[in-house]
């Protein structure tokens, strides 16, 4: 049984909504590097592109949002957008919620430590503490969208999103939930920026994991959230395709099994030419990170782009690491071979990998959705 992608919600430094992301793909830009970043941070640090969650107030009574922090707001907005994209009114009490986050609520965690450092142990803020727990975004989503089915939050750095997706697909296959809101959310804060800045000056790549990998080019640190509404295969088609499989493994013992007809999307500081990474030479490998930025749940954004690729039946130009556009020959819809499968893969320097394969529905007609 496959999981149908019924709707997608994205929030990033580039803006809000799958239509916004789609336009960027169609227009070959703008690239994330061109977006505004906050002014210099304490102790130096990498700048980042923040997200704007003000749209949330159009959808929910402002007072109901008052205790939600940045991470939870970002996640809720993306989840709400996924329901809207699916034309689903929400409120299905049995809908499951599976959330991935690489770092969790870092801003709130350090704000909580601030209250202790400034006010003493007895000055610790209970509200900040309650928001610093990793499952706070999932809790707020269930509260605001009425999704009261199974509810889990997973965290394994850049593997987080594919882990959450595997849980969502499992729930659907088991009949634990009739639909699942699955997504990933990550936020950036000056402390992370400081750490990345310090680590990127270290020569010893083995000393730290890939979240602080330097990448091929000027990877722009970003934050954001991406959510999908999934249903079992019997649900009506949206055009985004189905999740055919979610695999995880560990090199060198396992190796990702790429279907022969798949286009491969990858990002997050991936080093294609490293001997450790078994990306097939004869397959088209595309890196769209430059449109949404670098963040642990980036694989989720790749999956959103993969869904658009399936729906539109075409590939899009890729921003390369220097920020200039790379036009891919032969990508016009009428010339490109039919796109049947798109893979999203993420491989860490330690060899852990997650592989998501989307497939187009055989009965899908390109003209069935505007």
């Amino acid at each position, binding site marked *: 049984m496959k999981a149908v992608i019924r709707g997608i919600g994205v929030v990033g430094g580039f803006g809000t909504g799958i239509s916004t992301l789609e336009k960027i793909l169609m227009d070959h830009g703008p690239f994330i590097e061109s977006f505004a970043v906050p002014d210099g941070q304490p102790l130096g640090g990498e700048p980042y592109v923040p997200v704007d969650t003000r749209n949330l107030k159009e959808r929910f009574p402002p007072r109901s949002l008052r205790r939600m922090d940045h991470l939870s707001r970002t996640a809720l907005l993306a989840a709400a957008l996924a329901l809207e994209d699916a034309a689903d009114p929400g409120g299905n009490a049995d809908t499951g919620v599976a959330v991935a986050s690489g770092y969790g609520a870092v801003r709130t965690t350090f704000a909580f430590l601030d209250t202790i450092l400034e006010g003493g142990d007895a000055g610790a803020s209970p509200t900040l503490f*309650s928001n610093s727990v990793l499952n706070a975004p999932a809790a707020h989503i269930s*509260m605001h969208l009425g999704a009261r089915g199974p509810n*889990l939050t997973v965290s394994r750095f850049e593997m987080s999103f594919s882990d959450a997706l595997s849980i969502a697909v499992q729930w659907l296959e088991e009949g634990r939930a009739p639909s699942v809101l699955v997504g990933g959310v990550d936020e950036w804060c000056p402390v992370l920026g400081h750490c990345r800045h310090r680590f990127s000056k270290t020569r010893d790549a083995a000393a730290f994991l890939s979240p602080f990998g330097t990448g091929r080019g000027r990877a722009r640190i970003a934050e954001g959230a991406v959510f999908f509404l999934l249903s079992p295969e019997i649900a009506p088609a949206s055009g985004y395709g189905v999740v055919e499989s979610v695999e995880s493994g560990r090199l060198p013992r396992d190796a990702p099994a790429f279907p022969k007809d798949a286009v491969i999307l990858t990002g997050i500081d991936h080093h294609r030419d490293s001997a450790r990474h078994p990306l097939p030479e004869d397959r088209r490998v595309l890196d769209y990170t430059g449109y949404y930025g670098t963040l642990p749940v980036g694989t989720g954004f790749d999956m959103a782009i993969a869904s658009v690729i399936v729906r539109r039946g075409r590939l899009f130009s890729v921003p390369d690491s220097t920020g200039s556009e790379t036009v891919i020959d032969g990508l016009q819809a009428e010339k490109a071979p039919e796109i049947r499968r798109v893979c999203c893969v993420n491989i860490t320097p330690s060899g852990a990998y997650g592989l998501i394969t989307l497939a187009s529905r055989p009965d899908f007609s390109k003209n069935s959705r505007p």
Partner: protein
Amino acid sequence: MKAPAPVAVTGMGCICAAGEDVSTCVQTLFSKDPDPKPPSRFIARHPETHPVFELEASILTDLHSNEALSITAALGVAAARQALEDAGWDPEALSRVRTGVCMGTTVGCTMNDEAFYRTYRSGALPDLLPVRRFFSSNPAEAVARTFDLSGPCLTLSNACCSGADAIGTAMSWIRRGICDVAIAGGADELSRVTYNGFIALMITDTRPCRPFDRDRNGLNLGEGAAVMILEPDTSRRVRKRAPRAFVLGYGSAADGYHPTAPDPGGAGLRRAAGHAVSADGKTLSRIAFVAAHGTGTKDNDAVEARVLDALLPGIPFFSTKGHTGHTLGAAGAIQAVLAAACLNKGTIPGSAGFSTPDPQLPARPTRHPRTIHGDLALSGSLGFGGANAVLLLKRGGDSS
């Protein structure tokens, strides 16, 4: 519809203030008076002391020798090692099959090292070891790396339900053939940051906790880890191992009510219990007892007692937290392991900390040890954010 193939528990491990292995923990449940104390590993300044269930320093020194790994990750690895030994899996054989790892935690996924942050705030350059340690200490990754495993690898962070969710998720892996063996459980160390947070929420007791008692006044934090080794029952038979237990069902549901308080009607807990238990009366009548979440807070115990009375009136229940404290991400796993042990023992303990029934609650826990009748038990967890998780466990047999 055909019932799913049974998922056997072939090994269990448990490390917490109640003991450094399963049998010591079980002994503690039946014979010792709880003795939580003020934390000794850190200092926190509050008007009153809030006792905790800390691991003995000697136990920690034994299992946490590597500064580059967090105590939480080391606890998880140690519990996994115990459980694997109990299951008769030697590391070499294990690394040849597809082995899943599913671990729950709350502290283990949070970067909140105070010394690091204090230095950062002061304008000096902080030592990066705490950050390196954070990135090396994802609990499931730590287990997979230690035993050189390949297979699904998941770290769940679902507040106080994490450990139960991990076991339930791994049960599904085994049923669906995602892996041949699964290492599932939870781990959490006592953290000064978490300690201050819970006190700020005003849900910790300044005395040993009293789950379901009329005068209960909050929880005591604890620390520890517990792991179950899950595999298909067919594989267990081939390996000729006696089962420690079976995991028959798992339910997860969200209250969707409040960031910290449970839904007063226990809606999520009821749904989770419903999913864990099959609908027929036969299953319900075989339930010998319920291992309750029973933290000792006013709200949690009230909700749980009402739900238990509605779903399983007259079925005995008890909380283990009077002996272990609330171990957060490990709680659901520690509780499941102890519940399985009690099923095999045929006896359940009195609920530690309980003495005066609460007239506002429709049910009360066990006061003394008693013999049980039935081969099934429920183990329930409730967590911040309205999380609920329930496991249905079946007796394995007499412990060898």
